[in-house]
Protein backbone atom coordinates (compact mmCIF):
# COMPACT_ATOMS: atom_id res chain seq x y z
CA UNK A 1 0.00 0.00 0.00
CA UNK A 2 1.01 3.60 -0.34
CA UNK A 3 1.03 6.28 2.32
CA UNK A 4 0.97 9.97 1.48
CA UNK A 5 2.96 11.95 4.04
CA UNK A 6 2.02 15.60 3.73
CA UNK A 7 4.93 17.98 4.21
CA UNK A 8 4.17 21.48 5.48
CA UNK A 9 6.87 24.11 5.91
CA UNK A 10 7.93 23.28 9.46
CA UNK A 11 6.93 19.62 9.51
CA UNK A 12 9.62 17.66 11.34
CA UNK A 13 8.18 14.20 11.82
CA UNK A 14 7.57 13.60 8.13
CA UNK A 15 10.75 11.55 7.80
CA UNK A 16 9.92 9.57 10.94
CA UNK A 17 6.56 8.66 9.40
CA UNK A 18 8.13 7.70 6.10
CA UNK A 19 10.81 5.64 7.84
CA UNK A 20 8.22 3.75 9.86
CA UNK A 21 6.06 3.08 6.81
CA UNK A 22 8.85 2.12 4.42
CA UNK A 23 11.73 0.73 6.43
CA UNK A 24 9.83 -0.85 9.28
CA UNK A 25 6.57 -1.86 7.61
CA UNK A 26 7.83 -2.35 4.07
CA UNK A 27 5.17 -0.16 2.49
CA UNK A 28 5.47 2.80 0.14
CA UNK A 29 5.39 6.31 1.54
CA UNK A 30 5.47 9.36 -0.65
CA UNK A 31 6.06 12.91 0.52
CA UNK A 32 3.44 15.35 -0.74
CA UNK A 33 4.31 19.04 -0.52
CA UNK A 34 1.55 21.12 1.04
CA UNK A 35 1.18 23.18 -2.15
CA UNK A 36 0.40 20.09 -4.20
CA UNK A 37 -3.23 19.42 -4.94
CA UNK A 38 -3.15 15.67 -5.45
CA UNK A 39 -2.49 12.78 -3.08
CA UNK A 40 -1.31 10.77 -6.10
CA UNK A 41 -3.34 7.67 -5.48
CA UNK A 42 -2.31 7.13 -1.88
CA UNK A 43 -4.26 4.60 0.19
CA UNK A 44 -3.80 6.45 3.48
CA UNK A 45 -2.75 9.95 4.46
CA UNK A 46 -0.51 11.00 7.34
CA UNK A 47 -0.41 14.61 8.50
CA UNK A 48 2.86 14.53 10.41
CA UNK A 49 4.15 16.24 13.52
CA UNK A 50 6.12 19.43 13.57
CA UNK A 51 5.46 23.12 13.58
CA UNK A 52 3.67 23.87 10.31
CA UNK A 53 4.11 27.53 9.41
CA UNK A 54 5.97 27.99 12.67
CA UNK A 55 2.76 27.40 14.62
CA UNK A 56 2.20 31.12 14.13
CA UNK A 57 -1.20 32.45 15.19
CA UNK A 58 -2.38 29.05 16.47
CA UNK A 59 -1.10 25.53 15.84
CA UNK A 60 -2.47 24.34 12.52
CA UNK A 61 -4.35 27.59 11.87
CA UNK A 62 -2.47 28.45 8.69
CA UNK A 63 -1.73 24.89 7.55
CA UNK A 64 -5.44 24.16 7.28
CA UNK A 65 -5.56 26.51 4.28
CA UNK A 66 -2.74 24.76 2.41
CA UNK A 67 -3.81 23.67 -1.09
CA UNK A 68 -3.33 19.98 -0.31
CA UNK A 69 -5.97 20.17 2.42
CA UNK A 70 -8.77 20.21 -0.17
CA UNK A 71 -7.53 16.86 -1.43
CA UNK A 72 -7.17 15.55 2.12
CA UNK A 73 -10.72 16.60 2.91
CA UNK A 74 -12.10 14.94 -0.25
CA UNK A 75 -10.09 11.81 0.51
CA UNK A 76 -11.57 11.69 4.00
CA UNK A 77 -15.07 12.35 2.73
CA UNK A 78 -14.67 9.37 0.39
CA UNK A 79 -13.82 7.23 3.42
CA UNK A 80 -10.04 7.20 3.07
CA UNK A 81 -8.04 6.72 6.26
CA UNK A 82 -6.37 9.91 7.52
CA UNK A 83 -4.05 10.04 10.52
CA UNK A 84 -3.03 13.33 12.13
CA UNK A 85 -0.09 13.00 14.48
CA UNK A 86 0.65 15.80 16.96
CA UNK A 87 0.81 18.90 14.76
CA UNK A 88 -1.19 16.93 12.18
CA UNK A 89 -3.89 16.41 14.82
CA UNK A 90 -3.86 20.16 15.48
CA UNK A 91 -4.30 20.80 11.74
CA UNK A 92 -7.30 18.43 11.64
CA UNK A 93 -8.88 20.30 14.57
CA UNK A 94 -8.35 23.70 12.96
CA UNK A 95 -9.69 22.35 9.69
CA UNK A 96 -12.84 21.21 11.47
CA UNK A 97 -12.25 17.62 10.36
CA UNK A 98 -12.22 16.65 14.04
CA UNK A 99 -14.07 18.49 16.82
CA UNK A 100 -12.44 20.59 19.54
CA UNK A 101 -9.30 22.68 19.86
CA UNK A 102 -5.89 22.68 21.52
CA UNK A 103 -4.82 24.93 24.37
CA UNK A 104 -1.38 25.54 25.79
CA UNK A 105 -0.36 22.67 28.09
CA UNK A 106 -1.74 23.01 31.61
CA UNK A 107 1.81 23.35 32.98
CA UNK A 108 2.73 25.80 30.18
CA UNK A 109 5.90 23.81 29.43
CA UNK A 110 6.71 21.92 26.27
CA UNK A 111 6.48 18.27 27.32
CA UNK A 112 8.75 15.68 25.73
CA UNK A 113 8.56 12.22 27.28
CA UNK A 114 7.18 8.73 26.92
CA UNK A 115 3.63 8.38 28.14
CA UNK A 116 1.12 5.56 28.43
CA UNK A 117 -1.98 5.75 26.28
CA UNK A 118 -4.82 3.29 26.34
CA UNK A 119 -6.53 2.20 23.14
CA UNK A 120 -10.18 2.82 23.90
CA UNK A 121 -11.69 1.71 20.61
CA UNK A 122 -10.46 -0.72 18.00
CA UNK A 123 -12.97 -0.11 15.21
CA UNK A 124 -10.93 2.50 13.39
CA UNK A 125 -8.45 1.84 10.59
CA UNK A 126 -5.62 2.92 12.93
CA UNK A 127 -6.46 0.71 15.89
CA UNK A 128 -8.02 -2.41 14.41
CA UNK A 129 -4.92 -4.52 15.14
CA UNK A 130 -4.90 -3.44 18.79
CA UNK A 131 -6.35 -5.37 21.68
CA UNK A 132 -9.28 -3.50 23.21
CA UNK A 133 -7.88 -1.69 26.24
CA UNK A 134 -4.28 -2.24 25.17
CA UNK A 135 -1.83 0.27 26.62
CA UNK A 136 0.90 1.71 24.44
CA UNK A 137 4.07 3.38 25.67
CA UNK A 138 4.81 6.06 23.08
CA UNK A 139 6.39 9.52 23.17
CA UNK A 140 4.76 12.91 23.20
CA UNK A 141 6.50 16.16 22.24
CA UNK A 142 4.26 19.20 22.33
CA UNK A 143 3.54 22.53 23.97
CA UNK A 144 -0.08 22.71 22.93
CA UNK A 145 -1.71 19.35 23.47
CA UNK A 146 -4.26 20.38 26.07
CA UNK A 147 -7.37 19.14 24.29
CA UNK A 148 -10.49 21.18 24.86
CA UNK A 149 -14.10 20.93 23.75
CA UNK A 150 -17.34 22.10 25.33
CA UNK A 151 -18.99 19.60 27.71
CA UNK A 152 -21.78 18.79 25.23
CA UNK A 153 -19.17 17.93 22.60
CA UNK A 154 -17.29 15.71 25.04
CA UNK A 155 -20.55 13.97 25.92
CA UNK A 156 -21.21 13.35 22.24
CA UNK A 157 -17.67 12.00 21.74
CA UNK A 158 -18.15 9.61 24.66
CA UNK A 159 -21.55 8.50 23.41
CA UNK A 160 -20.29 7.89 19.87
CA UNK A 161 -17.13 6.17 21.16
CA UNK A 162 -15.00 8.70 19.30
CA UNK A 163 -12.37 8.94 22.03
CA UNK A 164 -9.79 6.52 20.70
CA UNK A 165 -6.76 7.10 22.96
CA UNK A 166 -6.57 8.26 26.58
CA UNK A 167 -3.59 9.08 28.78
CA UNK A 168 -3.53 6.54 31.60
CA UNK A 169 -1.23 5.08 34.21
CA UNK A 170 0.49 1.74 33.64
CA UNK A 171 -2.64 -0.06 34.79
CA UNK A 172 -4.68 1.63 32.07
CA UNK A 173 -6.52 3.95 34.46
CA UNK A 174 -6.91 7.57 33.33
CA UNK A 175 -5.68 9.58 36.33
CA UNK A 176 -4.82 13.24 36.72
CA UNK A 177 -1.16 12.31 37.33
CA UNK A 178 -1.03 10.43 34.03
CA UNK A 179 -2.44 13.41 32.11
CA UNK A 180 0.62 15.25 30.76
CA UNK A 181 -1.09 18.37 29.44
CA UNK A 182 -4.48 18.88 31.06
CA UNK A 183 -6.58 17.45 28.23
CA UNK A 184 -10.27 17.13 29.02
CA UNK A 185 -11.13 13.54 29.99
CA UNK A 186 -7.45 12.56 29.46
CA UNK A 187 -8.09 12.60 25.71
CA UNK A 188 -4.97 11.79 23.71
CA UNK A 189 -6.69 11.02 20.43
CA UNK A 190 -10.08 10.84 18.79
CA UNK A 191 -11.83 10.07 15.53
CA UNK A 192 -14.57 11.61 13.42
CA UNK A 193 -18.09 10.20 13.34
CA UNK A 194 -17.30 8.08 10.32
CA UNK A 195 -14.24 6.78 12.21
CA UNK A 196 -11.82 7.05 9.25
CA UNK A 197 -10.10 10.25 10.42
CA UNK A 198 -8.02 9.84 13.56
CA UNK A 199 -5.88 12.40 15.35
CA UNK A 200 -3.59 11.89 18.32
CA UNK A 201 -0.95 13.90 20.13
CA UNK A 202 1.49 11.03 20.87
CA UNK A 203 3.88 9.91 18.14
CA UNK A 204 3.36 6.23 17.24
CA UNK A 205 5.75 6.64 14.30
CA UNK A 206 8.53 7.45 16.78
CA UNK A 207 7.96 4.19 18.63
CA UNK A 208 8.28 1.59 15.90
CA UNK A 209 11.58 -0.07 16.84
CA UNK A 210 13.00 -1.27 20.12
CA UNK A 211 16.20 0.60 19.27
CA UNK A 212 14.38 3.86 20.01
CA UNK A 213 12.97 2.65 23.31
CA UNK A 214 9.58 1.32 22.27
CA UNK A 215 7.91 -0.42 19.37
CA UNK A 216 4.44 0.03 20.79
CA UNK A 217 3.44 2.55 18.14
CA UNK A 218 3.90 0.11 15.30
CA UNK A 219 0.46 -1.39 15.81
CA UNK A 220 -1.15 1.92 14.80
CA UNK A 221 0.49 1.89 11.38
CA UNK A 222 0.13 -1.87 11.07
CA UNK A 223 -3.57 -1.40 11.62
CA UNK A 224 -4.02 0.85 8.63
CA UNK A 225 -1.97 -1.48 6.42
CA UNK A 226 -4.37 -4.25 7.35
CA UNK A 227 -7.38 -1.98 6.92
CA UNK A 228 -6.28 -0.90 3.47
CA UNK A 229 -5.34 -4.37 2.29
CA UNK A 230 -8.71 -5.62 3.43
CA UNK A 231 -10.67 -2.58 2.41
CA UNK A 232 -8.94 -1.78 -0.88
CA UNK A 233 -8.00 1.72 0.15
CA UNK A 234 -11.33 2.92 1.34
CA UNK A 235 -12.63 2.57 4.84
CA UNK A 236 -16.38 2.36 4.79
CA UNK A 237 -19.19 0.88 6.81
CA UNK A 238 -18.78 -2.28 4.76
CA UNK A 239 -15.25 -2.87 5.96
CA UNK A 240 -16.16 -2.94 9.64
CA UNK A 241 -16.91 -6.64 9.55
CA UNK A 242 -13.74 -7.34 7.68
CA UNK A 243 -11.74 -5.28 10.15
CA UNK A 244 -13.31 -7.10 13.05
CA UNK A 245 -12.47 -10.47 11.61
CA UNK A 246 -8.96 -9.26 10.82
CA UNK A 247 -8.54 -8.11 14.39
CA UNK A 248 -9.75 -11.44 15.66
CA UNK A 249 -7.28 -13.27 13.48
CA UNK A 250 -4.47 -11.02 14.75
CA UNK A 251 -5.48 -11.53 18.35
CA UNK A 252 -5.86 -15.23 17.79
CA UNK A 253 -2.21 -15.64 16.90
Amino acid at each position, binding site marked *: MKFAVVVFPGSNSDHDAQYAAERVLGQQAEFIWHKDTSLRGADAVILPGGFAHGDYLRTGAIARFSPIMDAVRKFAEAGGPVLGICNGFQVLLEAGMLPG*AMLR*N*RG*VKFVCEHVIVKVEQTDTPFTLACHPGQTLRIPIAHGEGNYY*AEPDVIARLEKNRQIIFRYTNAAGVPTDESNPN*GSVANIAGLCNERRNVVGLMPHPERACELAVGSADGLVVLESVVRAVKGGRGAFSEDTFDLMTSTRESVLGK
Partner: protein
Amino acid sequence: MRARVFVTLKPSVFDPQGKTVTDALHTLGFAAVRDVRQGKYFELDLDALSADDARRLASEAADKLLSNPVIESYRIEIVDEVIA
Protein backbone atom coordinates in the same frame (compact mmCIF):
# COMPACT_ATOMS: atom_id res chain seq x y z
CA MET B 1 -8.59 53.00 8.10
CA ARG B 2 -7.45 50.65 10.81
CA ALA B 3 -9.24 47.77 12.45
CA ARG B 4 -8.22 46.55 15.87
CA VAL B 5 -9.12 42.95 16.60
CA PHE B 6 -8.94 41.65 20.18
CA VAL B 7 -9.06 37.87 20.42
CA THR B 8 -9.60 36.36 23.86
CA LEU B 9 -10.25 32.91 25.23
CA LYS B 10 -13.88 32.31 26.09
CA PRO B 11 -14.61 32.67 29.82
CA SER B 12 -15.24 28.92 30.11
CA VAL B 13 -11.78 28.08 28.75
CA PHE B 14 -8.83 27.71 31.12
CA ASP B 15 -5.91 30.00 30.21
CA PRO B 16 -2.62 28.39 31.32
CA GLN B 17 -0.58 31.41 30.26
CA GLY B 18 -2.87 33.86 32.03
CA LYS B 19 -2.63 31.73 35.17
CA THR B 20 1.17 31.77 34.97
CA VAL B 21 1.20 35.54 34.55
CA THR B 22 -1.19 35.90 37.49
CA ASP B 23 1.13 33.81 39.66
CA ALA B 24 4.14 35.88 38.56
CA LEU B 25 2.38 39.13 39.39
CA HIS B 26 1.45 37.79 42.82
CA THR B 27 5.07 36.84 43.39
CA LEU B 28 6.02 40.42 42.51
CA GLY B 29 3.63 41.77 45.11
CA PHE B 30 0.66 42.69 42.92
CA ALA B 31 -1.71 41.26 45.47
CA ALA B 32 -4.69 43.18 44.11
CA VAL B 33 -4.52 41.33 40.77
CA ARG B 34 -7.28 38.78 40.95
CA ASP B 35 -6.86 37.18 37.56
CA VAL B 36 -5.19 37.69 34.19
CA ARG B 37 -6.53 36.50 30.87
CA GLN B 38 -4.05 36.61 28.03
CA GLY B 39 -5.25 37.26 24.51
CA LYS B 40 -4.10 38.43 21.10
CA TYR B 41 -4.26 41.86 19.55
CA PHE B 42 -4.21 42.46 15.79
CA GLU B 43 -4.01 45.75 13.92
CA LEU B 44 -5.27 45.52 10.37
CA ASP B 45 -4.31 48.41 8.14
CA LEU B 46 -7.03 48.61 5.54
CA ASP B 47 -7.59 50.37 2.26
CA ALA B 48 -9.98 53.27 2.62
CA LEU B 49 -13.37 51.75 3.33
CA SER B 50 -16.49 52.86 5.06
CA ALA B 51 -16.44 52.02 8.75
CA ASP B 52 -19.16 49.43 8.14
CA ASP B 53 -17.19 47.77 5.35
CA ALA B 54 -14.04 47.81 7.47
CA ARG B 55 -15.88 46.15 10.33
CA ARG B 56 -17.36 43.56 8.00
CA LEU B 57 -13.96 42.77 6.52
CA ALA B 58 -12.25 42.55 9.92
CA SER B 59 -15.02 40.35 11.18
CA GLU B 60 -14.64 38.02 8.22
CA ALA B 61 -10.87 37.83 8.81
CA ALA B 62 -11.44 37.11 12.50
CA ASP B 63 -13.98 34.38 11.75
CA LYS B 64 -11.89 32.72 9.08
CA LEU B 65 -8.38 32.96 10.49
CA LEU B 66 -7.63 35.23 13.44
CA SER B 67 -9.76 33.39 15.99
CA ASN B 68 -10.84 29.82 16.62
CA PRO B 69 -14.53 29.87 17.58
CA VAL B 70 -14.17 26.68 19.60
CA ILE B 71 -12.08 28.41 22.26
CA GLU B 72 -11.99 32.11 21.44
CA SER B 73 -14.17 35.12 20.89
CA TYR B 74 -13.23 38.51 19.48
CA ARG B 75 -14.12 42.16 19.51
CA ILE B 76 -13.40 44.75 16.83
CA GLU B 77 -12.69 48.47 16.99
CA ILE B 78 -12.54 50.59 13.85
CA VAL B 79 -10.19 53.56 13.97
CA ASP B 80 -10.52 56.18 11.27
CA GLU B 81 -6.99 57.42 11.03
CA VAL B 82 -4.35 57.79 8.36
CA ILE B 83 -1.47 55.37 8.80
CA ALA B 84 1.86 57.08 8.32
